[in-house]
């Protein structure tokens, strides 16, 4: 994709996106709603016209081609099955439109339904299927086309939690078996982290960061990515730069491993730390007092929702040790290597 732009009337929603997606990789677009991830996917599919820029698939410029000529297949959030056709006809429809030979159609439908384990449902109508089965049929309809690129538009968000997990694994398996390029849009972090080879984080029609799940999680490019990826999200605390690698947060001094040449003493900064990098200690240097508002017990772990001295909220993960009760005050220390500092404009400093 080269400098992709999209405007609705005078409103530009995609502001020049450049992206190279390696063949055979699984790329996930994530971002808050309205960030343009679905629009971008629909432009790749050819359902949305590109205002400016070019899209190439396998070295072929497809910017002005019809959706059916681009070598893509798409799975919709709402399945979008043809309700008046049986599952078999649903799967075969695209091939029939392309005037594929009957024997070939049958073979491909059979293969696809075997992969997805829907062979016993072929004569049913979509109305007689459960949500998970419908989604399988929708994926099957994509498979029979043998596309260069699979496009998924939030395919699992209509399913219940349990089914979502199993379909997620199914999609990962499918990617391994078929080896096609897959582009997947979601706002679900777990889906993004577990499925992706590479994650593209979008905001307001711009790419904020592109990288492997680990890169995006551990080395967020800016304060937005840091706050968006991860659940619960990274704690971002307002602080003041004191110079010499020191920051004042909620009345406590923290050291951060940077010199901070481009910062002036007294500059506002944001101090970031993920919940799992906070530890409950007995106090001591660099620890920070926090009052526990309430504690969420999840079995293996516990999330402590705290308030700092100046009222800033903070979430800490607490794995072992004596139970912590709401209302008590604890001392928290922060893993030295995991401290992040962001400038007032969102740039990452450490």
């Amino acid at each position, binding site marked *: 994709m080269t400098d992709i732009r999209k405007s609705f009337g005078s409103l530009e929603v995609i502001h020049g996106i450049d992206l190279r997606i390696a063949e055979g990789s699984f790329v996930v677009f994530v971002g808050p709603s309205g960030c343009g991830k679905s629009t971008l996917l629909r432009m790749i*599919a*050819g*359902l949305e016209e590109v205002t400016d820029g070019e899209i190439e698939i396998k070295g072929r410029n497809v910017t002005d081609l*019809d*959706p*059916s000529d681009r070598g*893509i*297949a*798409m799975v*919709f*959030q*709402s*399945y*979008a*099955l*043809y*309700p*008046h056709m049986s599952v078999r006809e649903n799967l075969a*429809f*695209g091939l029939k*439109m*392309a005037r594929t030979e009957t024997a070939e159609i049958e073979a491909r439908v059979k293969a696809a339904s075997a992969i997805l384990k829907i062979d016993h449902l072929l004569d049913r*109508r*979509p*109305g*007689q*299927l459960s*949500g998970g089965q*419908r989604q399988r049929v929708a994926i099957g*309809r994509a498979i029979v*086309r043998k596309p260069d690129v699979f496009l998924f538009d939030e395919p699992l968000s*209509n399913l219940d939690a349990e089914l979502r997990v199993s379909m997620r694994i199914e999609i990962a398996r499918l990617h391994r078996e078929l080896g096609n390029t897959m582009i997947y849009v979601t706002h679900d972090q777990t889906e993004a982290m577990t499925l992706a080879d590479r994650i593209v984080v979008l905001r307001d029609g711009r790419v904020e960061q592109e990288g492997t799940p680990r890169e995006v999680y551990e080395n967020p490019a800016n304060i937005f990515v840091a706050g968006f990826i991860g659940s619960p999200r990274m704690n971002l605390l307002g602080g003041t730069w004191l110079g010499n690698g020191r920051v004042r947060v909620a009345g406590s001094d923290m050291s951060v491993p940077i010199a901070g040449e481009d910062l002036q003493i007294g500059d506002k900064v944001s101090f970031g730390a993920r919940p799992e990098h906070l530890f409950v200690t007995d106090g001591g240097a660099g620890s920070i007092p926090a009052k526990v508002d309430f504690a969420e017990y999840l079995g293996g772990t516990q999330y402590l929702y705290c308030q700092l001295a100046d009222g800033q909220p903070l979430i800490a993960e607490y794995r072992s040790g004596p139970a912590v009760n709401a209302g008590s005050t604890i001392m928290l220390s922060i893993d030295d290597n995991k401290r992040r500092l962001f400038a007032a404009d969102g740039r990452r400093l450490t």
Partner: protein
Amino acid sequence: MILSKMNASMSLSRRRRERKAFRAESAYHATGLAIALFFLAPFAITLLASFRHGTEARLPPLPPWPVNGISLDSYRSLDTFGAGVWQHTFNSLLVSLATVALTVAVSVLAGYGFSRYRFPLKNVLFVLIIATLMIPFQSILTPLFIILARLGLNNSLFGLTLVYVTLQLPFSVFMMRNAFDAVPKEIEEAARIDGARDLKLLFRVLMPLVLPGIATVAIFAFLNAWNEFLAALVLLSSNEKYTLPVLMMAVRAGRLGAVNWGAVQAGVAVMTLPCLVVFLLLQRYYMRGLMAGAVK
């Protein structure tokens, strides 16, 4: 001992529940039956009366069935009016079916266009089309007559058909636009990815989904064209071209002051039958839940 007592009381309460359910159900069915009878009685009485003997036909209709055996006298005498009942039935059928075909064809395409394409002045145009529903067509009968005359289409069944289609279109276009609006956009997009475009998309994918709308439009077009009287009377002038309602007017007016009630009943029966057939044929497409399973 206690156990059997418990059993007894349980079966007692169960029997009470069953009796209550039975009573509720009987009341429900009885009411339904009464309403059905109320609506069906006029049709039954007309149909039965049309099979009376010629002399019996002019007597008061009690009892409402033929007493002296079944006869086709009334139908025979109906056939002596105008150019014969077959000719007029044929005229009516021709006009009605042509109206249905043209109305469905135009309103499907127009509804699809209004629902799915973006073009300048779309909404103004749509409102204009709907607004014509407010004009009583009797008030434009004279201009219509003049236009048809200019086109050389007065006293022609084709001209009458065109008038009926025109009168039918605002409602039908409105109906079809709503029907197409109800089809989820994703289905259309999936079809486009599958390689279906324009007319293929319309006929292979969307048409089956808007069948209930088409059935509604067809039923309305048929009934309105079949029963229309005033335009047919004004725009047609030769005897052998009149449609059934015009014939019925002549039958109802009688000859030399005497009304042949048998012929009137027979005419009503002839006029009712096709409406029933059309409705029974198309009503199953009213079926709800056709879209079930498409999305979500």
